């Protein structure tokens, strides 16, 4: 859990998790070692809803007309292997979570997010099996939510 940011360990055996950094302080012969949470890289880029703070989820507050081609938004809800993040992580309401789940599935079937895929994936939509290698698009109005 603790990342070695005191510049001693440069080679990682496992993938580094930059969740906390170790801060070492020395005051009056007392050495304090503290694990501090690192600032999230997303914090500065967060979008503020127009009408200030509200209780609704982040997507409801923004009132976006999300399409399955908006991969820059949809990829925020997806892990690096293409799996959808759970609701407790995304913080969406049930309705929006379901909608984003379907939009992500549409984008993946259209081959628009080939770099977010399992490690064994060929990552080339043209190399997929049979009918899956051809271009397809979806109509968002067919979604039940």
């Amino acid at each position: 859990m603790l990342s070695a940011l005191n510049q001693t360990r440069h080679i990682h055996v496992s993938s580094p998790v930059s969740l906390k950094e170790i801060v070492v302080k020395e005051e009056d012969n007392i050495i304090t070692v503290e694990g501090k949470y690192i600032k999230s890289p997303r914090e500065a880029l967060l979008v503020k809803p127009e009408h200030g703070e509200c209780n609704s989820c982040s997507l409801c507050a923004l009132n976006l007309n999300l399409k399955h081609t908006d991969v820059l938004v949809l990829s925020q809800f997806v892990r690096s292997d293409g799996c959808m993040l759970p609701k407790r992580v995304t913080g969406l309401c049930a309705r929006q979570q379901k909608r984003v789940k379907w939009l992500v599935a549409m984008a993946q079937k259209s081959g628009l997010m080939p770099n977010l895929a399992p490690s064994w994936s060929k990552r080339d939509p043209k190399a997929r099996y049979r009918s899956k290698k051809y271009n397809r698009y979806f109509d968002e109005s067919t979604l039940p939510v």
Partner: protein
Amino acid sequence: MSAVGRVQQWATFGRMWYLFDAKWQNPFHSADKIKDILTGTHKPIYHDLNDCGDHVVVINSSEIALPGVEWEKRVYFHHTGYAKGASWTLAWQLHHKDPTMILRKTVYSKLSKNLLRRGRMEKLHIFPDDKIPDSILENVSAQLRQMRPIPKRLDHYTREEVEKFPKVFDWPKDYIIK
């Protein structure tokens, strides 16, 4: 006749060659547009007995996009005329055999069913990719507008564009990013 009037006369009865890029386009919607130009109904001088259709050059027909599950559900029927001669080909199978066939068959079925149909089809030139013979390309003087925007893939954005794009939510404090 004045010089201007003579040029207007030429322009009215001259044949135009239009270029259409079928990349990520629905062939059934595109065919509606192409059909109008092949028959010449977009012209004020159109008449049933008037041969005033224009040429259409379609490129990238192998990259057409079908909506939803139409690649698997759309079926093309053929009958040889003999007993047990019926065959059903799925859209993706037809596209695999000949990437120009879906667009050609769609335009053919949308044209009016009369003796002019074959002649109008001769004005349609479809190419699976963007390689056109020079003899055809030198005639092209106009372009048809695409009906759907071409979506951009996530891996075609630069790393900086993806990282700097505004974010909708922040991860929980103790969430380990995978």
